[in-house]
């Protein structure tokens, strides 16, 4: 089935220099394995093509049912160098949550 990440996760994003960080948190513990399985580095790198010019790193926080992504070279240089409206990457979380995932599992989504 096809789902939108927004249905199973929430997120917060921010900056460290030119790197955007996006924390993605499962809305329910049972959704965390889906995040871990489908929200891969490769998937995220491909999705952010054109926004993220550098590498993508992924860290797991199973205790919080969450993943942390670092999107390197995503903020137009970062800080006061950046000419971007969102120089601090505050909306990268929204961009992430708009992603659609094709999953093998059948889940009932109640928000």
């Amino acid at each position: 089935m096809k789902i939108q990440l927004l249905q199973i996760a929430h997120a917060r994003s921010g900056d460290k220099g030119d790197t955007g960080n996006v924390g993605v948190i499962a809305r329910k513990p049972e959704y965390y394995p889906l995040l871990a399985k489908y929200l891969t580095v490769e998937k995220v790198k491909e999705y952010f093509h054109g926004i993220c010019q550098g590498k993508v790193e992924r860290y797991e926080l199973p205790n919080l049912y969450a993943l942390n992504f670092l999107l390197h070279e995503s903020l137009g240089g970062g800080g006061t160098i950046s000419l971007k409206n969102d120089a601090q990457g505050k909306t990268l979380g929204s961009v992430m949550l708009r992603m659609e995932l094709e999953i093998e599992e059948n889940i009932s989504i109640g928000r």
Partner: protein
Amino acid sequence: MKPSVRIASGQGFWGDLQTAPIAQVRKGPIDYMMMDFLAEVTMSILQKQKMKDPKLGYAKDLIPLFEGVLLDVIEKNIKVITNGGGVNPLACRDAIFAVAKKLGITGLKIGVVLGDDILNEIDSFAFRGITLDNMETREKLSSIRNNLISANVYFGAFPIVEALQQGAQIVITGRTTDTGLTLAPMIYEFGWKNNDWNKLAAGTVAGHILECGGQASGGNFSADWKSVPDLAHIGFPIAEAYPDGRVVITKHENTGGLVSAATVKEQLLYEIGDPKNYITPDCIADFTSIQLNEAGINRVEVFGVKGRPATETYKVSMAYFDGYTSFSTLTYAWPDALEKAKKADEILRARLKDLHLSFDEIRTEYLGFDSCFGPLAENHEELNEVVMRIGVRSHDRESVERFGKEIAPLILTGPPSVAGFAGGRPKPSDVIAYWPSLIPKTTVAPKVIVEEM
């Protein structure tokens, strides 16, 4: 020893909600209030202010804030800790003493943490082989040495602890870590040692939750923002700390906002890197060890935090001048709003090219269409209106200044139905770039001064 200590967040950044500290001292019991003022490039802004006037260089907001809270702080014996001293904590202290005098307060003790400002020692460090190269890009400091504006060592909680031990009711620091402001009172009250790694990590995690103010108590909350009550009167977070390292995150009753596992999780993930290695001067905290438990309405218990020994180095935050930027916006209306805005951009770029100006970058975004989503922006039905936002960056000030003269002409010499050019020609702003580095802890020492007025 107190059974628990309530540490309140009063400001999450310079420019935060001005009424928050007043609400924290008046709407319920607290023992401490911490206020974080310093982002990565804030020190350079303050350094420039100090160069113009040696009495400045601290977060000026602190003075009206203290005018608002100082009587309550004295009456309720609340201790206040802030890094808003910037590059001039002594001048900040004197300004607060002046506020106290005006309010008829006597006997106030203020502690100051100095020694983080190493701008004047850069060359002597270089002579001793401490090169302060960029820890991320590995570039040599010499490449930007002449443009350096500020250089500050991040100190941790322990200098603040020393000031508290000497009886300070208010502690003003320069570049202290955000987390240290919250950790310090726990170390002081509970007698934690400098190798109680799990406890230091627990206090550090609490500090990370508090350091962005309302962002832990319902602000900027993506999970279910519509459910957050009364954001107009949001209660900033409070850490109720226990001697064993357990912390309950809460807020005052009768305030707006929300403290839930979800709001705390979002803040825990904010601006972190490798969660197993959250490095501060005080310890390394492992964010994958954090356990949360909703322990009541607007009460989230944080426990199980594991820590490891601190590193041998302090982080150094430096800022240098790196050219100029300028921005402008124009709003285009239906029909063909986006098409018009794109044509205006095309015309503008052609004119800039004809002028042979020198830019490192020209960037155009269309607000209402793609400034957040970039190439991922999806075309929907036709836009009612769109804002063209164009920015330029250059090391040539004249080019940036000349750019500012090319915006207004677009109104009468470009696509039709355009609004929003008010406030005159855009002016060049300085670009302040960030240079992170490391320095051995043995080479710098914090200095603590506590004085009674």
